[in-house]
């Protein structure tokens, strides 16, 4: 579904990602673990075309997207839930979700999105900026789903969210995958969440993938070693 090969990304002269190779199968949930500053967010941003790609290729369903603008990538089936949510705070909850409709071409927000996040239906007319952190996270996911993606990218979705909601989010993400048959790539620092949600766990360190383990038979201690300081 999503095929990344030899991806090099740099900010000016300093290269952050040194040739990444990742393949994500349809319906697969992949967690990318790593400490701060190891390149998780840069990877997400470069996949969305927010940070330009230096060399290498990113393919969606075989189509090369690495030279495309952000909105063109969305049209090819990528969707993005950024770190810090980045919802449009002066717009209402409903309007926030509706911004995603431009890409899918739908006229109205489909009911199954509100079914997934009932709290958003209650708060439809509130301004996005007045929601709590967990609600904003749900809103950001709903907005991404409104574009009808094939691959959903989430950048540290658990950041700043209370533990009980984190567990619920793992369930929600799996439900989204099962109902919509899309692939999910999630970057994380919380190992328990990654183990909850992922089919495969990758570890990124200094801009390179150093581990790639399937969920079954994973060695927690080995991965935790790369996360602790």
């Amino acid at each position, binding site marked *: 579904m999503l095929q990344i090969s030899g991806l090099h990304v740099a900010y000016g002269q300093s290269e952050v990602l040194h040739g990444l190779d990742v393949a994500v199968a349809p319906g697969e949930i992949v967690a990318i673990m790593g400490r701060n500053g190891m390149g998780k967010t840069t990877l997400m941003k470069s996949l969305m075309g927010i940070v330009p790609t230096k060399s290498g290729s990113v393919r969606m369903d075989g189509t090369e997207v690495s030279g495309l603008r952000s909105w063109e990538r969305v049209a090819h089936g990528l969707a993005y839930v950024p770190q810090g949510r*980045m919802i449009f705070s002066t717009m209402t909850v409903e309007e926030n979700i509706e911004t995603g409709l431009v890409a899918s071409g739908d006229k109205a927000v489909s009911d199954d999105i509100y079914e997934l996040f009932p709290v958003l239906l209650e708060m439809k007319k509130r301004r996005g900026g007045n929601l709590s952190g967990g609600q904003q996270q749900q809103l950001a996911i709903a907005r991404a789903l409104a574009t009808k993606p094939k691959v959903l990218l989430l950048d540290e979705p658990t950041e700043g969210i209370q533990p009980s909601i984190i567990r619920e989010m793992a369930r929600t993400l799996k439900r989204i995958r099962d109902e919509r048959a899309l692939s999910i790539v999630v970057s994380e620092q919380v190992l328990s969440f990654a183990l909850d949600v992922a089919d495969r766990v990758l570890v990124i360190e200094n801009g390179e993938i150093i581990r790639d383990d399937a969920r079954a038979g994973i060695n927690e201690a080995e991965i935790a070693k790369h996360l602790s300081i």
Partner: protein
Amino acid sequence: MFGDYSLSDLGAIFAMQGFAGLILFSVFLLMALGLAIIFGQMGVINMAHGEFMILGAYVTWLTSNFFQAHLPALFGGYFFVAMVLAFFASGALGMLVEWGLIRHLYKRPLDTLLATWGLSLILQQCYRSIFGAREVGVDLPQWMLGSFQVTDAIQIPINGVFVMVLTILITCAVAYILYWSRWGRQVRAVVQNRVMAGAVGINTEKVDRYTFALGCGVAGVAGSAFTMIGSTGPTSGQLYIVDTFLVVVFGGAASLLGTIASAFTISQAQSTLEFFLSGSMAKVITLLAIVGILMLRPQGLFALKVRK
């Protein structure tokens, strides 16, 4: 200054000057709407806005000449055609300018100031070369010339009422486009967070281009209204750009309601004061009042209240 007039005279003077100020209000409002869209929504300071207005005025003049020469029977309705043409002419020029100039400068707001100022000089010279340095004026159709006689002392010019109704309609249309249409939602998303708007699938370049074109198109319509109060020359737009910036800042950038209120206040204050004092004194008093109010409320009359 009021001493020489009786009370009923004063009432009549205020009423009539007030209505005379309506056309000024309309021009201010339409100009400021365009400027507020472009400045408030995109952060671009468009010094050439007056020239976009004058383009609309020239288009109106050309249309009126065309109707006089070729369709004298339909002359009464030329203004409607002229407005539509003015909107599209200024909008098309705006789109071209955004594509050729402004889009390269979004990250350098101060440079847009210089670039658009240069553009305004270029446009002025173009007008001078094409239309001549002499100012031109349009003939109003017969039905716009008279005035309603409300009481013995109060007359309301028909063209003033007409232009104001038109302005209200256009303002409502702009409000609808920005706040209730799908396209307006995209514009507001881009304004809030350009990068994120792109990442949810909004074509931000297209939104920028059409927003700029809309702002310029509305300025073109302002130019049509302008032909009723002044004669059109290559540099006429310059006289209005400062006042218009004042309207936008006084009203609070990005607030439609504020722009309306401030255009109304400024135009009425000027028009009423001009009757009793000289034109420049009227301007001085208006400016002083605005400076005073802005010192107390730097964010303008109406500012949107949201958590940042």
